[in-house]
């Protein structure tokens, strides 16, 4: 399980999360809903080990997280992958799509062009698109590359923070299907953060609402 317990985060004097707990179970999709500004993205970043909370604990399959961001041990860091709303802010503009997808494998010393090609194909990217740089492709095409990159190290948990909010309905359905296929074959747990109730009703096994009232709905 990927678990946040009693997590508190402050930005300056402002308390964004106040003792929030959330569990992402393996093999299941947890939906995280709530209005703008309620702290959804902050909680997603905490669970992806990208933000150290002021208080509280995060555990990944029982292992407590003590160091964050690039200081987190590689085994924990690569266990959780994060997908952002804005793919353009999440890629190096100098790299081609192939290089973007290949980056985590290369950084882990496991460069594998065949696997990169297979990941790209699964995300729906083919041919000369793969040789282009981010400014030469659409948001939807770039997000496909980000999904392929997120799956490359076979994370045990995927945190999808408004992954499809900027995209048209068809690309959204495609990318959710790619994540679902990965979840089903790998048994990974998924945290789907979205303000779109129709999407979470379709995608998530259960939903948690942050802000307003808290608790589980089925």
């Amino acid at each position: 399980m990927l678990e946040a317990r009693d997590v508190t985060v402050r930005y300056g004097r402002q308390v964004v999360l106040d003792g929030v707990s959330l569990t992402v179970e393996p093999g299941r999709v947890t939906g995280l809903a709530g209005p703008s500004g309620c702290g959804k993205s902050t909680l997603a970043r905490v669970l992806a080990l990208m933000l150290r909370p002021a208080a509280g604990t995060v555990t990944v399959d029982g292992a407590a997280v003590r160091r964050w961001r690039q200081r987190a041990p590689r085994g924990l860091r690569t266990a959780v992958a994060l997908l952002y709303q804005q793919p353009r802010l999440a890629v190096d503009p100098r790299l081609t799509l192939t290089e973007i997808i290949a980056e985590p494998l290369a950084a882990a010393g496991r460069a594998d062009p065949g696997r990169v090609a297979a990941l790209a194909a699964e995300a729906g990217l083919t041919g000369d698109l793969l040789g282009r740089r981010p400014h030469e492709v659409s948001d939807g095409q770039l997000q496909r590359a980000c999904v392929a990159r997120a799956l490359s190290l076979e994370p045990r948990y995927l945190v999808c923070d408004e992954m499809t909010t900027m995209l048209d309905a068809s690309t959204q359905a495609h990318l959710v299907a790619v994540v679902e296929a990965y979840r089903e074959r790998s048994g990974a747990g998924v945290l789907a953060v979205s303000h779109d109730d129709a999407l979470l009703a379709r995608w998530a096994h259960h939903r948690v609402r942050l802000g307003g009232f808290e608790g589980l709905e089925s």
Partner: protein
Amino acid sequence: MSTSVSPGEDLPPGGPLTAGSPGAAGPSPGGDPSADGPVPDGDSPVDGPAAAGGNRLRVEGLTVSFRLPGATVRAVTDVSFEVRPGRCLALVGESGCGKSVLAHALLGLLPGNAEVAGRARLEHADGPLELLGAPEAVLARRVRGRAVGLIPQSPATHLTPVRTARAQLEEALRELGRARPRERADELALRQGLHPADLDRYPHELSGGMAQRVANAMALAGDPWLILADEPTGGLDRPLVDRAMAALRGLCDEGRAILLITHDLRAAERVADDLAVMYAGRLVETGPAGRVLDRPRHPYAAGLVNARPDRAFVPIPGMPPELTRLPDDCAFAPRCPSADGACTAPPPLADGVACHHPLEDDRA
């Protein structure tokens, strides 16, 4: 070939025909694009959208391409539609289909390597004006902000970060020659549901919803009769999207014309009277919004509607073609379940659908 999006019978609830759109008959499809349109209202007093009787924007055969080294991007191909006061036309399609280029072409905001053909005729109290190729001075003095208000993508980043919302709104009012800019700014803010004190904030102190309202107030500073909203809901959550759409609907109901450009079918559904679905730079289906969303006839429109999470949630296979190498035949054929040998010729937009095998409309 000119096909207008004309008001239909089954309007969505809350989509009234105002005095600005007499009768339910748009100009007949097949009107000759080379003929001059009807004479506008000449010297009727310029007094806001209430006097917008004969106003309309008529786009015919609009084609935009960009010449790049070694390639030509055909961003918009032969697009025709009409927007009238009291009506909202939503132009929907996936990212990269050319819809924002179209908006920029209408406002003269395309980069220098753009090649534009076709007509975009603004008919209003100032007399008719051809927007395509109009001199920059004319666009700046008569069109942008005055006849046509723009609600931009991501309003928060559109504002200058180092000045308050009020400074920017009052500057716009002064440039537009409006008297008493301070009082007028307060009025505009109140009408958008903002407290006048909120105008004294800097852009980073505004929430997404407040920035949206400031953007609306800026677009309305010159009292335009036509509002061009280019993906106005980017980054807003669903309740804020709904509120932004309700605000657009309100502008429409007070007699303004709205051209909404969006990839969000649910946003379009909430506000649009008419829908135009764009694929690979062409309009593939047009018609009353309720009908197109409930009973789409073009396979692409049907695929988009089916991909919604509250419908089948099934993606359209494949991806849109590159605009640098559009096929000579139907651009959707490689992804289309109904494609066959007939699809080698590009289908014309006839009777609201550009397809050789339109889906049957059961009511027919």
